């Protein structure tokens, strides 16, 4: 843990996933205030840095997070449909991250008890990239990823 942190500090620049989670209020007990918008989390730039920082706190790859109605190829990066279902018990939050976007965090959904842990929305993608579905359940983090190719459509002119 310590080593990871030091490493992250040394490399500088990138914000680690842990910082991201802390900033997003996920590491604190209780719900984030409704009108909070966590600037630091939405300004993360490097997936590499966040992945290096995972160490002991790394989200576990989970087969219980499923992408639905999410194509492998997007005809246009301006609108990419993303559907995520978490089958993990006590899911509290679902976040969407795009590895190669200028800022990788796209959206975080806090899901109160009584709301299905399944939702769909649409995001922008600048280029072909891995998309991560990050789930917080019982205070632990789980992740699934999917590569979505972005193509150039139409006449290209």
């Amino acid at each position, binding site marked *: 843990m310590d080593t990871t942190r030091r490493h992250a500090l040394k490399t500088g620049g990138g914000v680690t996933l842990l910082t991201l989670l802390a900033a997003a209020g996920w590491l604190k007990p209780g719900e984030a205030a409704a009108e909070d918008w966590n600037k630091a989390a939405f300004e993360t730039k490097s997936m590499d840095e966040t992945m290096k920082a995972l160490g002991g706190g790394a989200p576990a790859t989970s087969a219980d997070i499923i992408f639905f109605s999410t194509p492998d190829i997007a*005809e246009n990066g301006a*609108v990419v449909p993303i559907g995520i279902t978490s089958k993990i018990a006590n899911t509290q939050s679902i976040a969407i991250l795009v590895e190669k976007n200028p800022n990788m965090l796209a959206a975080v959904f806090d899901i109160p008890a009584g709301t299905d842990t399944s939702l769909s929305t649409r995001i922008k993608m600048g280029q072909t990239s891995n998309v991560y579905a990050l789930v917080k359940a019982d205070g632990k983090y789980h992740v699934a990823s999917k590569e979505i190719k972005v193509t150039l*459509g139409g006449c290209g002119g």
Partner: protein
Amino acid sequence: MIARLRIAAAIALGVTAVAIGGAFAQSSTVDEIAKYREALQDGNPAELWEARGEEMWTTPRGPKRVSFATCDLGLGPGVVKGAYAALPRYFADAKSVMDLETRLVWCMVNQQGISEGDATKIKFGDGSARRSDLEALAAYVTSQSRGVEMKVPVNEPHVRDMYRLGEQMFFYRGGTHDFSCATCHGEDGKRIRLQDLPNLTKTEGAQKAYTTWPAYRVSQGELRTFQWRLNDCFRQQRFPDLVFGSEASIALTTYLAGRANGAPYNGPAIKR
């Protein structure tokens, strides 16, 4: 000799593998694009334009403070339901064949007292703050024909004349690149990049294409009308700027709408 044959066989096998790989990649690309389009169908932002257009339709506008309740789209003053499915048509009061957009402008100018310049100031939105009233109105009016069978009165002499003119224009090659409408839309099963091209010379192709305009264009974040569709096709044909509501725009719309007759209207749609 044997060694050589082996090499040849190996090369041949390699080539086959590449060919199969290529074919597989391609068919899965097409399938995945189909999945992408399907995923977009649920929740079409065109509805936001429809809502804005509906509001405008019923609100008194212009110096005369008149709403579109007096605007006759061909089925009587203020009648919207099914009107788009029978356009373009001949309007005796204007002594001309009009499509939806030119008719909307006519109502704004002749009934609401808005100058033609103001009515057509923003023909097409710019994907940002410059929004077009005409696109919103067209979204609303066309949405009221959803499911209604296309019945453009192609046997009416003025309309028939326009239709024939449009047909000639469809095949007119010009510009630096020798393009006509038919270059891209004259054969079955063709694509430009990954975009399927409807064969507009065939009934099914024209029906499928025409009945899905206007459409929310994902790439532009705007609702686009058929006038826009034609203008942008000509831009890509390397032609000059098609004048909004011009004779060529009406003739081509009449030709394509007429060819779509018999199919249920299915717009506004959502497209790349």
